[in-house]
C-alpha cells in the first residue's frame, strides 16, 4: 500500500486516501479560532477498541495516511495504540497538535509507536500566538513540541491559519519555524467556523488574498532553497498568477487547484464516529453517518452527504463563481469555507483571481456578518457580500490583536 501524498486525479478511483481523524474533542487549550470549539470531550466518543476496528476499516478502504487531531489526539487514552495499529495496517500515522503537552517522553513514545510526523499549530509570533490560543506560554510550548519531536526522530512541520491578527507576522514566523527545523509548513486562512465565527474582526477580507498569495509564494521560493516545503491548505487560492507556484510541491511545478476533494479522496472522522467528506465540513450539514451504526465503506459509498463533490458541476455554482472563467475546474474552491459564509457551497469570495478581477474593475467585496453561529462544534453564522470601491475605507485594518480576539454577536 502506498503512502504517497501525490495522486493522479484522472484515474477516477475515488476512495478515502487521506483521512483526518478527530480522536477526541477534549483539549488542553481554548483557542479563540477553534472551528470545533474543542475543550470537553464529546458525549459518546469512540473507545479504543472501537477505534482499532475503524483502523481495520480504513485499511480496507485503501487509506494512505491518517492525520490524528483533536482537540488533542494525545489526550485519548488509546492514542498510542491507535498509532501502532495504523502503522501495522500500512497506513502512515501523523499528528497535528497544539503541542502544549507534547513532552519529550510523549515524543519518544510516539516515535516508538511508529508515528511518522508531527505538525505543530503555530498561529503567529509569541504575543499573537498566545492571544489566539488563550494560553500564556502556548507559543513556547509549541516550539518545545517541535524540539521534542525532532529530538525523538520524528519529521516535523508546522501549520498556520492566517487571519488579520497574524497577517503582518508571516515572514517573521517563517524565520522562527525554519530555525526550529521544520521541513514543511502548511498555510491556510481562518474561516468563520466555530469560535472563529464569533470573531468577525479576526477574519481576512477577500481583498487581502492577492497580497497573501504574493507573500506566501515569495516565502515558498525562499523556503525551497532551505529545503523547506510550504504548501497551501485547500482554502487558500485560487488561480491567481501565482497559482502554480503556490500549489506545486516543487519549485517548477505546474499544479493548480482541482476542486474540492471532500468525499473524493479525503475524509473526516469526528470523535463520536461521525463521518464526513472533509474534517472541516459543518457537522450539521455534512455528517453522512456514524461508525457505530454503519460500516465506513457503506457510509462512503452510499451516503449522499459524502457524495456532494463527486458530481458537482458549474450548474451548482452561483454568484461570481457561476460565471468565472475557471468555474469548470475550480468549482468555487473550498466547500466548507463557502458554506461557513453563506450556508451553502458554490460561491466563494475568498479567491485570489476573483479579488484581482474585481480590483481591476476598481471594486472589492467586503464580508459583513449578519447572523452569529449558534455555539456548536463546526457551526457557522452567515455573511453578506458588500460590493464597494476598491479604495473604500477599511476601519478594521488597524485593530489591535486584543480587539480581534473579542467575540461579537450579530443578530440576524
Amino acid at each position, binding site marked *: 500500500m*502506498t503512502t*504517497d*501524498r*501525490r*495522486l*493522479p*486525479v*484522472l484515474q477516477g478511483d475515488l476512495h478515502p*486516501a*487521506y483521512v*483526518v481523524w478527530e480522536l477526541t474533542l477534549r483539549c488542553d487549550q481554548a483557542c479563540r479560532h477553534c472551528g470545533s470549539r474543542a475543550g470537553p470531550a464529546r458525549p459518546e466518543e469512540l473507545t479504543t477498541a472501537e477505534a482499532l476496528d475503524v483502523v481495520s476499516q480504513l485499511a480496507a478502504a485503501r487509506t*494512505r*495516511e491518517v*492525520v490524528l*487531531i483533536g482537540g488533542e489526539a494525545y489526550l485519548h487514552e488509546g492514542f498510542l495504540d491507535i498509532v501502532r495499529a495504523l502503522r501495522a495496517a500500512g497506513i502512515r500515522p*501523523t499528528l*497535528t497538535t497544539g503541542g502544549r503537552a507534547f513532552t519529550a517522553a510523549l515524543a519518544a513514545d510516539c516515535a516508538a509507536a511508529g508515528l511518522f*510526523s508531527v*505538525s505543530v499549530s503555530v498561529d503567529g509570533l509569541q504575543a499573537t500566538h498566545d492571544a489566539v490560543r488563550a494560553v500564556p506560554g502556548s507559543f513556547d510550548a509549541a516550539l518545545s513540541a517541535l524540539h521534542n519531536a525532532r529530538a525523538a526522530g520524528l*519529521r*516535523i512541520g508546522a*501549520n498556520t491559519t492566517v487571519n488579520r491578527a497574524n497577517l503582518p507576522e508571516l515572514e517573521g514566523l517563517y524565520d522562527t519555524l525554519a530555525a526550529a527545523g521544520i*521541513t*514543511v509548513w*502548511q498555510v*491556510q486562512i481562518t474561516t468563520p467556523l466555530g469560535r472563529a465565527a464569533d470573531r468577525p474582526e479576526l477574519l481576512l477580507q477577500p481583498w487581502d488574498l492577492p497580497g497573501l498569495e504574493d507573500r506566501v509564494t515569495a516565502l515558498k521560493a525562499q523556503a*525551497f532553497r532551505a*529545503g523547506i*516545503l510550504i*504548501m*497551501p*491548505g*485547500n482554502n487558500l487560492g485560487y*488561480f*491567481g*498568477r501565482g*497559482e*502554480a507556484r503556490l*500549489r506545486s*510541491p*516543487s*519549485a*517548477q511545478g*505546474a*499544479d*493548480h487547484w*482541482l476542486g474540492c*476533494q471532500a468525499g473524493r479522496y*479525503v475524509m*473526516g472522522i469526528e470523535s463520536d464516529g461521525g463521518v464526513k467528506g*472533509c*474534517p*472541516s465540513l459543518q457537522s450539521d450539514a455534512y455528517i453522512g453517518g456514524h461508525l457505530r451504526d454503519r460500516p465506513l465503506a457503506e457510509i462512503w459509498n452510499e451516503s449522499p452527504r459524502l457524495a456532494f463533490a463527486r458530481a458537482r458541476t458549474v450548474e451548482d455554482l452561483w454568484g461570481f463563481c457561476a460565471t468565472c*472563467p*475557471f468555474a*469548470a*475546474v475550480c468549482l468555487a474552491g473550498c466547500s*466548507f469555507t463557502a458554506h461557513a459564509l453563506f450556508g451553502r457551497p458554490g460561491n466563494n469570495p475568498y479567491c485570489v*483571481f476573483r479579488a484581482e*478581477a474585481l480590483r481591476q474593475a476598481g471594486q472589492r467585496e467586503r464580508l459583513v456578518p449578519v447572523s452569529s453561529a449558534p455555539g456548536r462544534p463546526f457551526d457557522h453564522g452567515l455573511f453578506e457580500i458588500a460590493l464597494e470601491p476598491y479604495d473604500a475605507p477599511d476601519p478594521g485594518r488597524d485593530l489591535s490583536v486584543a480587539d480581534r480576539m473579542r467575540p461579537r454577536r450579530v443578530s440576524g
Partner: protein
Amino acid sequence: MNALLVCSACGGFVPPVVSTCPHCAAGVSSAPVARRRGAGWVARRAAVAGFSMTLMACYGGGPNDGIYYTDAYCEPGPADAAPACETDACPPAADASTVPRCAPQPDAAP
C-alpha cells in the same frame, strides 16, 4: 477535464475556452505554451498541467517526505520525452543520500 494553458505573457493559468488571458488580457494562441524550466523542457508540460495533485486537508500537515519534493526530484529527460514522474509518482528516496529516480545523476552532463 480540459487541461489549462499557461499564458506566455504573465505565466498565469488560462482556461482553454477563452481567447485572452483572464489575468493580463494578452492574446492566447491555440498552442499551449510551456513554462520554461531550463534546457530540455517539454512543450507539452503545460498541456498536462494539473495531472496530479497533492492530497491536502485543513487540520492536516503538509507532505513531509523531505527529498521527495525538492526541485531536483522531477528533472525532465530528453527534450522529446515526458518526464517519468509526470505519469507516475516516483517513489521517495530511501534516505537523503539516495538520488531520486528522476533526478540527474551526479556524473551526468547538465
